[in-house]
């Protein structure tokens, strides 16, 4: 039974899978990307306004407003989990950020010392208040993410129930801290804040730039780090992940923290564009975010998903919304159509996997 070691392995019985049958070409993301391209062409002929610079900027800005949170929730979906608290998280982080900003800038606030010129000490360092308020907003997101992750990974609660509860808890906390009134970014750094959240660089909206940077970072993390590989393994076969020694609890907590941070950042950016953080901000956004992720090819059963899919899903939803507006269709149709697309996207993928 001695086996010759040196002879190289030959693949006489195992063919190589053709290039168009693997990778992105065989994924739901690929089909949806194709559908998006077709849709863009149709839109171009349907409306002369669609490909104008102004409208493109508008589209880019609008989909960036949910896409960063979609990147975050995609991490969670790949592990086979779900996070329903992203909408509330957006609101709460935005609210905390603008409240901290106002509070730190206000003369007479008990938390800050006054300098000789009548401004607060913090206000004399340009950008410091901005930095502290954004960190505060992200800080509460971090805490919420840790609590989600702890309940799901350590206590073993179902992600759906845990984050459904968190949706309500976080929204409620938002009403509590603001008395239901919402809050506004204020003080000397408010202008920096608006520039960083709703400004543009050479005609490109800044949220879109953040999105591209974060999506590239996510691609590297998912496909070129051990953490990313463990995220996929967890969604593919959690038991196997456990048996091979992957720190399952830690990875799970980390994805919920990433998701909450992405939602928090998203909320802060949206509040800059709105000019305020109302207490009912981003209500039911979790549905848009999860819908975009699923349309883009993330599988709720876990194991599949990526940044390209997340963005493609968001763009598709926004192009349809924008298209309906340009076509002067009642905007009430929007939601109905989004639902149809979710089911269609998943259906096409199911038919494809039946065929192969």
């Amino acid at each position, binding site marked *: 039974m001695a*086996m010759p070691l040196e002879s190289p392995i030959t693949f006489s019985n195992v063919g190589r899978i053709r290039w168009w049958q*693997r990778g992105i070409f065989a994924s739901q993301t690929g089909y949806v990307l194709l559908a998006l391209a077709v849709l863009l062409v149709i839109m171009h002929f349907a409306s002369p306004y669609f490909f104008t610079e102004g409208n493109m900027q508008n589209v880019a800005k609008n989909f960036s407003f949910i896409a960063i949170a979609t990147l975050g929730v995609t991490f969670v979906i790949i592990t086979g989990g779900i996070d329903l608290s992203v909408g509330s998280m957006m609101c709460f982080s935005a609210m905390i950020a603008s409240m901290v900003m106002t509070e730190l800038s206000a003369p007479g606030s008990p938390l800050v010392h006054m300098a000789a010129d009548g401004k607060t000490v913090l206000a004399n360092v340009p950008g410091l208040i901005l930095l502290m308020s954004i960190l505060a907003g992200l800080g509460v997101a971090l805490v919420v993410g840790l609590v989600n992750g702890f309940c799901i990974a350590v206590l073993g609660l179902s992600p759906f129930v845990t984050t459904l509860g968190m949706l309500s808890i976080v929204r409620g906390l938002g009403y509590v801290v603001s008395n239901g009134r919402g809050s506004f970014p204020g003080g000397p750094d408010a202008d920096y804040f608006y520039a960083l959240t709703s400004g543009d660089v050479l005609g490109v909206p800044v949220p879109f730039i953040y999105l591209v940077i974060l999506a590239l970072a996510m691609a590297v993390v998912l496909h070129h*780090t*051990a953490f990313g590989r463990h995220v*996929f*393994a967890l969604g*593919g*076969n959690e038991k*196997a992940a456990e048996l*091979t020694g992957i720190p399952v609890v830690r990875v799970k907590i980390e994805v919920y923290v990433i998701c909450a941070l992405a939602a928090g950042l998203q909320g802060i950016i949206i509040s800059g564009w709105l000019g305020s953080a109302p207490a009912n901000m981003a209500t039911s956004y979790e549905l848009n975010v999860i819908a975009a992720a699923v349309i883009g090819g993330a599988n709720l059963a876990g194991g599949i998903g990526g940044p390209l899919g997340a963005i493609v899903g968001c763009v598709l939803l926004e192009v349809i919304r924008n298209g309906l507006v340009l076509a002067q269709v009642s905007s009430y149709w929007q939601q109905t159509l989004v639902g149809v697309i979710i089911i269609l996207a998943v259906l096409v993928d199911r038919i494809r996997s039946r065929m192969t």
Partner: protein
Amino acid sequence: MTNVEARPVLELSGVGKEFGAIRALHDVDMHVLPGEVIGLMGDNGAGKSTLVKIIAGNFRPTHGEIRFAGDAVHFNRPVDARAVGIEVVYQDLALADNLTAAANVFLGRELKRRFGPLALLDHKAMAARALELFGELRSETRPDDLVRQMSGGQRQAVAIARTRLSNARLVMMDEPTAAISVRQVEQVLGLIHRLKEQGVAVMLISHRMPDVFAVCDRVIVMRRGEKRADKPIHETSPEEVTALITGAKEAA
């Protein structure tokens, strides 16, 4: 065949396990020498799986002591058992089928390259090493193919290749030949021989009598949670082993 003077790589004395009122395992003594292939046989519910899971660190024994390479060991998790050099090929193979063959082989111990503060996966090195391992197993498995698209034998090869990454001193295989083709059974048995040549001890848990008699040096028969026989393979016969498994013969 076996080196009688050698120190056992694994020694169990008086190992027992109770789940509430159920006695799954009672007073098992056994040892495994380096380079020895042991066939562990028994009917469903005989205690084979419990024994394997205790050795692999999934369960802690209620009674008794486990010694590995002479030292008493206490495993709390499978990772602990793996750290000392015990590898298990699980029956359901424990593969993530959304990942490639190479990714599965290296799952949990990825090769990385440092780029400043970043440690990025070394895809090339992992694919090359995986291809080498598949070559050793004579398995036509491409490192970059998804496990989802693979045959039962290829999956088996991926799971076995995983144990070859570390310097395992004891490899336990749970029904490795149950779900694969005749030709691939030959390959798996060949691999067991290769492990043996390198001084690795193998515990083969199998229902397939011909496979056990083809590769094992010694056979251990479990029945009703107890060890009923522990014999060199050339001193027994498939008939006797069958009788021991079914209870027609109480002990040997």
